[in-house]
């Protein structure tokens, strides 16, 4: 098939994206220029007042830092847990390898809301973790593991793990087993081989997975909303709150565009980093 004809393959997806993404995003841009009156009514106009107010509000800065911090901690936690799993799946000769890979990405098959309620049952005051710790006499009062940053970080890390495992598996292409064997045969300990050969070779995969996990965490809404107990304020929850509780569409739109720009910048940075590491 010629290149010109090949392009037609993109038509259905292109039209779909245009209808469900580009068009509403344009609406978002339009709303960002509107203003909100003192009692919450939207005033249709073309002004930058809302944008100026949002950018000047110190709370926007706080939200940004919160989002970045949450994404960073969830990504690092998820990376620490996903890397060994992905390495195992990449290397194992087990005949159950396919099945194990499915198990690893299984959380993707469950609704985010259900997963979060699962975490509430595990991490709640009378949940699995606290009950076990109390029955072993490790603690007397329940530990606060949900409705705060701890719960959100744990829940979020779990929800991005499957994506990160897939990204790691995809990025392990350069991981050549013969190089590790050479290192071992030249007398390096397994630990030294891992640190000097395996880990450096998997850095591009780690960068790819971390970038993906970070972006997913930045836009995560359900986990901070349901596990945060109203104590975790991030950009995604604030956009929702402004749009659906305060009926303040202009502020919600400005914040949404702000987050979009931030994510694009982060994606570009992560791509640059991954490319740099490959060289």
């Amino acid at each position, binding site marked *: 098939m010629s290149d010109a004809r090949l392009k037609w393959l993109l038509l259905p997806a292109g039209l779909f994206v245009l209808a469900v993404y580009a068009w509403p995003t344009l609406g978002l841009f339009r709303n960002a220029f509107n203003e909100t009156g003192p009692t*919450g009514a939207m005033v249709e106009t073309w002004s930058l007042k809302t944008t100026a107010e949002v950018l000047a509000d110190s*709370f926007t800065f706080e939200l940004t830092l919160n989002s970045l911090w949450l994404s960073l901690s969830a990504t690092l936690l998820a990376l620490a847990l996903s890397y060994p799993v992905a390495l195992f799946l990449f290397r194992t000769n087990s005949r159950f390898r396919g099945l194990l890979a499915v198990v690893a990405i299984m959380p993707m098959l469950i609704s985010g809301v259900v997963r979060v309620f699962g975490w509430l049952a595990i991490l709640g005051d009378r949940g699995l973790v606290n009950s076990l710790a109390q029955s072993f006499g490790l603690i007397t009062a329940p530990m606060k593991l949900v409705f705060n940053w701890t719960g959100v970080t744990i829940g979020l890390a779990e929800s991005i793990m499957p994506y990160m495992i897939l990204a790691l598996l995809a990025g392990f292409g350069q991981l050549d087993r013969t190089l590790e064997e050479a290192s071992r045969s030249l007398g390096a300990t397994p630990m030294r081989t891992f640190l000097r050969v395996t880990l450096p070779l998997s850095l591009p995969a780690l960068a790819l997975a971390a970038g993906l996990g970070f972006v997913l965490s930045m836009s995560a809404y359900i986990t901070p909303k349901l596990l945060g107990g109203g104590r975790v304020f991030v950009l995604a929850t604030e956009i929702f709150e402004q749009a659906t*509780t305060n*009926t303040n569409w202009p502020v919600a739109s400005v914040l949404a565009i702000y987050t979009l720009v931030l994510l694009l910048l982060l994606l570009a940075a992560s791509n640059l980093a991954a490319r740099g590491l490959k060289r």
Partner: protein
Amino acid sequence: MPTRRLVLQAGLATVAAPALVRAQSSLSGTITLMSYAGIFQDNYTKAVVEPFQQAHPGVKVNYVPGGTSAQMVGSARAQKADPQVDVTIMDVTTSSIGNSEGLFEKLTPAEFPVLNELLPEARAAGGDYGPAVTFDHLVLVYDAALQPPLAKLADLWRPDLKGLLAVSAPPNIQGLALTAMVEKMEGGDHRKSIDAAIRKLKALAPSVSTFEPNPDGYSLILNGVVKVATGWNARSQLYADQTGGKIAALLPPEGSVFQINTINLTAGSKNRAAAAAFVNYALSQPAQKAFTERMFYAPTNGKAQIDPKAIARTAAAPESRARMIDLDWNEVLKVRDQWNNRWRREVVAAR
């Protein structure tokens, strides 16, 4: 005590109303009513929508659950050019936004004579626009097995309740109402300052399990996650009945705040005549009586004759009315962002 004459009048009104409505019914088509989902929808359908449809056999009322009030006014805003909803029942804080954006119609007593039967505060709630259709108030909902039982607002600070509270923080209107209540408890007036309330609520924060109860405070109590939650009276009364008294509702002696739902006729409704008839009916004595007796929202039609047992469980009971704090939601709307920010920075952040 209702006098014999009053009972007779009420009886006549109840008997006559559907007949009167039927007599004028040449209406047809479908109208869409948007309001809350769940038990509100179930009970409103039984108490108001079905009797209306019986009186107007040609009209079909399509009840669409619209999420929260803010989401409903959002839908109305998005459909401004081509309205899909004819009548909306939602909280006054959001319907006032819709009114000022021209999403809803003004109602005149000439066309809606039932407006003359409404309590003055019900008319005032909507101004020239859709008036109040239900009154409710903030209560403290608690596990009925709690010992000692909850007796006052100040009990929230009891050490034995640490970690066992679910409090809806602003911008949820429950949080705004609670702020005014705590300010009054502390001897202040929310119209002047909320400093005392914020100080007191800050001390409460470590006792709060969640500031955003999901799916709601009633469920968290029933599931044993918390012992006390902020909630609305009508729903609490109904849940108390439905669970065989597992939860109880307290109207704090320190005072409470009315929550007002207004009924709003969409500007540009495609079946205006039927929609207007529905608004008339929803505000009428029989509809108000049926819904109050079914779900314990206080009536807004002052002439509706309601079973005293049901009235006693609503905000319309004299001892309840006496405890109500004078709060103008339109004024609170203007300071909502400010209160919201103080909660976030000074209350929720306190650990």
